[in-house]
């Protein structure tokens, strides 16, 4: 299948800016999928979006849209939609005329453009506000109109540059639901920049992890979380359990002891990683110990909302385990942590 958008060895250097903002980035986004570009500030996420949109020229590499090279095509001729962090609605136009802007720019009459815009305004549940000025909208409504405006242009790919980062948690949740509904109804190809791992998990099929202008991993949400390509990806995805050791014969040897791991794990030095959300914890030293069980002692407990995070010592290693808020765990307790083989992953070091 031809990628909706493909980046080939994209490099970007800004004047007086070293190292380069992007270094040889290759990325393929399949039609109808949603990919989240995830990374810390300054990692190059927005630069990728702006290069795809044509608002920045790459220093090297090519951009293919549906197999067509658009590297030298003007932004207005790429048929790429971009929703910015701020809605940037045109203040001199009503809500419906903002959504109808692309058709008006394409030469359609005001009536035709408005007729075509209405379904998109309905889709974002603002069909009643078409005649309003944009100044009377709330932040969440403005961003809904911005999304409807971008969709009404019927772009080949929709780029979202942290569009919900300025909204509060409730509004952000509503926008995630809206995006999922849009995906169900229109199946657009979406590339979305975010620094929020939870947001990426909710709305995207795949995650592309960026750091220092380099694409570290592009994979399904589950694999990026549980099968990180490197320790950097594990760290960026919030992984807190990294245990150095050596793999010999399908067993990882470390301060935890001998832990069986997937057969695909490379022989030699490797770090055992697992998600603190995936590990289990039961009070006391279970006997007989179930598969993947390790006896541990609680070192500290920190409550976070309805959950709590326990730091436990196993052998010479300190591990993080998330436990339900209803479980009574205190420092010094003897516990058993359960590490099923399927949550363990070895990153070669």
């Amino acid at each position: 299948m031809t990628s909706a958008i493909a980046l080939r060895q994209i490099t970007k250097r800004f004047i007086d800016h070293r190292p380069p903002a992007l270094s040889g980035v290759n990325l393929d986004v399949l039609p109808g999928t949603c990919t989240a570009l995830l990374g810390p500030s300054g990692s190059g996420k927005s630069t990728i979006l702006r290069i795809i949109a044509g608002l920045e020229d790459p220093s090297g590499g090519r951009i293919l849209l549906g197999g067509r090279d658009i590297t030298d095509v003007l932004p207005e001729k790429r048929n790429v939609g971009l929703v910015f962090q701020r809605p940037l609605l045109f203040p001199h136009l009503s809500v419906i005329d903002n959504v109808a802007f692309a058709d008006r720019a394409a030469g359609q009459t005001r009536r035709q453009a408005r007729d075509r815009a209405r379904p998109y305004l309905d889709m974002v549940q603002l069909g009643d506000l078409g005649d309003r000025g944009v100044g009377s909208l709330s932040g969440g409504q403005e961003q809904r109109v911005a999304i409807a405006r971008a969709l009404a242009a019927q772009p080949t790919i929709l780029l979202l540059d942290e569009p919900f980062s300025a909204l509060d948690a409730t509004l952000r949740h509503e926008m995630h639901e809206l995006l999922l509904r849009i995906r169900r109804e229109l199946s657009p190809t979406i590339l979305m920049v975010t620094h929020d791992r939870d947001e990426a998990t909710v709305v995207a099929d795949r995650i592309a992890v960026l750091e220092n202008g380099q694409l570290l991993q592009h994979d399904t949400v589950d694999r990026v979380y549980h099968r990180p390509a490197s320790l950097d990806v594990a760290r960026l995805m919030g992984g807190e359990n990294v245990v150095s050791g050596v793999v010999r014969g399908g067993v990882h040897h470390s301060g935890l002891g001998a832990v069986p791991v997937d057969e695909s794990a490379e022989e030699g030095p490797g770090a055992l990683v697992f998600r603190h959300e995936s590990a289990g914890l039961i009070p006391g030293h279970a006997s007989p110990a179930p598969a993947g069980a390790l006896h541990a002692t609680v070192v500290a407990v920190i409550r976070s909302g309805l959950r709590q995070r326990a730091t436990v010592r196993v052998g010479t290693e300190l591990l993080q385990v998330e436990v339900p808020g209803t479980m009574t765990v205190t420092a010094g307790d003897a516990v058993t942590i359960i590490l099923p083989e399927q949550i363990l992953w070895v990153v070669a070091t």
Partner: protein
Amino acid sequence: MGSRGKRGMANPNPDPVNRLRGARLLLIVGMIPVVVVVVGGLGSTILQSIGLMPLVGPVRLSVDAYVSTAPALLSSIGTSLWIAAASTAVAIVLGATTAFVVVSGGRLGRIVGAIGAVTVSVPHLIGAATMGLLLADSGVLPRLLGIDATAWPALVAGPWWVAVIAEYAWKESAFIALVVAGTLLTRVAQFDEPAAMLGASRGARLRMVFLPLAAPALIVSATIVFIYTLGSYEVAWLLGRTYPEPLAVMAIRLFNDVSLSSRTESAAIAVLTVAISLAAVAVAAVAMRRSAVWR
């Protein structure tokens, strides 16, 4: 010590009513010189024009000053309106174009912006002298182009007031450019990228985004230019014909006349000029209210 300390601290949340009252007091203080100049100056001019504040002779309500200037008045008003309207129109086109070049950035934008800033600082009198030296039949331009003085059109002191309009348009286009560029850079430029991403070409962006959003700045600056051009005399006096006289030139001539009775006629011309200016402001206000941004 405690109370002194409290008095020295700024109140972080002053009472809104007191704050509003304070702001109004400050506004009144600021309004005093404006009221003195506008009401005092305009009032005394109106009183002079209707004979209630004569320099010599008895106080008598009359419209003699208006009647006595009437024969030359129509052609003077026509000339003034022509100069002001033509200068403003050319300045709008030049200024708006210059503003868009400045906003487009790059080296050209910076150079054009710098030229605009320098142009604004040149006094009109210097500009008029320069324009005279450039456009007169014995000036620099015909010499550069190798055109004989007899074949050169009457741009200075000619029937179309070309040199006067050129000077005003040149100077005031820089003013319009700086005002509009300021608006575009701070409030409008941010909408260029969203418009481009919606498929709008450069022309469509100019027509559908930049011009509507720059319209208030254009209307306000154009109104200022029109009124200034209508009311200033030195450029028309230096580069224009002796007849018909623009209103401002006539007003100055009558004001400086040896006959002190001419002061009332000068005042009458000034009042008429103010009336035309107020009409221009009213037209601008209507245009502002009809602009898309205002709506």
